[in-house]
């Protein structure tokens, strides 16, 4: 039980480290960095490597943004297997709906109740 937490911590930390190096060394903006990581997740997913990573690291692999790429790709591949070419398009959003929908809903609610403040600390 304890090990699952340690591994989640470690793997999640590594993925974030890669992101930090992209931003500091690669001088990429956050937008570029996150887009790169999402594509990386999609590629690993296509090669069949991301699902084993999730089995190994749990939240350490599902929480970073790379998992978006994985979910979208897995959804597309599963549907493509079932329905052929059309499945590629229809499958994509079945699996990631949670991340994007919750962000939209909470974003909307946030806009209703919060006002931006320019405080620094």
């Amino acid at each position: 039980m304890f090990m699952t937490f340690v591994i989640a911590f470690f793997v999640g930390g590594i993925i974030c480290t890669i992101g930090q190096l992209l931003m500091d060394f690669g001088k990429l903006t956050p937008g570029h960095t996150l887009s790169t990581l999402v594509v990386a997740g999609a590629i690993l997913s296509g090669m069949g490597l991301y699902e084993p990573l999730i089995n190994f690291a749990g939240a350490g692999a599902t929480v970073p943004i790379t998992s978006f790429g994985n979910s979208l790709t897995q959804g597309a591949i599963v549907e493509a297997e079932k329905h052929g070419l059309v499945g590629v398009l229809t499958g994509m959003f079945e699996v990631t709906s949670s991340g994007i929908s919750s962000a939209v809903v909470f974003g909307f609610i946030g806009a209703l109740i919060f006002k931006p403040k320019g405080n620094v600390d």
Partner: protein
Amino acid sequence: MVIVFQSKPSLIAGGVVAGPLEKRSIFSQYFDATFDDERWQMKTNEQGHRKMVEEACEFAMKKAGMKSADIDYFMGGDLINQMTPTNFAARDLDIPFIGLFSACATSISSLIVASLLTEVGASKLALAGASSQHNAVERQFRYPIDYGSQKPQTAQWTVTAAGYALVGKHHEEYPSIEAATVGKSVDYGMDDPFHMGAAMAPAAFQTIQSHLEQRNQKIYHYDLILTGDLGQLGLKLLKGMFLESGIKSEELQPLRDAGAEFYGQDETFQSGASGAGCSAAVFFSYVIQQMRAGTYKRVLLVATGALLSPLTFQQGETIPCTAHAIEITME
């Protein structure tokens, strides 16, 4: 070519108003007011920005015992698209209005135009200045302010402040404007909007050098050469350029930067303050008051501005900058 003002228009009064964070400025004791609400109790940041401009102008006019109806011209600008806060403030002030955009150098470009109008006899009293509001500027140029991006040490903090000066005919009681240099748009290939100091330093160097040359002066002729918002790193670069040109470092003692000093040594603000309101707030409160107190007799105010937009950065362009200088003396 340097502009020499034969009639020596005077800075009759200055009005400076700032936001809640600016209470932490080392210059806050010189401001006329600092507000607790960065929106000035208005519904949006932009509306608060407008209110702040009006308040600064009211202070300047009140100090001179004047009202809107007595003012011939209102000129100024800000960093918001189409300068709407200043435009809308002009609507409420009801004074003939010239909007000017030199990014963070607007405080001095408007002062130069006001002085010219006074020099040719077209204006008896003119308001000139600039302003910026942190939230409104950040969401336009960089990110929404609640976004968790990591700002580098080279970044600067846009101040929430408005500074306006009342320019009138020469009067020996007040600091007077002797000369001015209009800067060019200078691009040394810097392209990082989180490192504006590096982009602006060459423009400041060129303008100061040009002014000194044309006026046959050296740095030591001045008690103070104050740039607007180069920040700590930009000031370092400016000094580096002077050292490279043969000036010794002891001679650079009058050279200071308002943005670098604005928040003191507080590292939360990285390289220092920036924004059109930074130079305006410090020039039209601290400098004017210190000159009247006799601390400085000859001052060169050099406001610096980065002439980029969020779009130009996305299109991969570098950042051209400008710096305008005005020479003020106190008898």
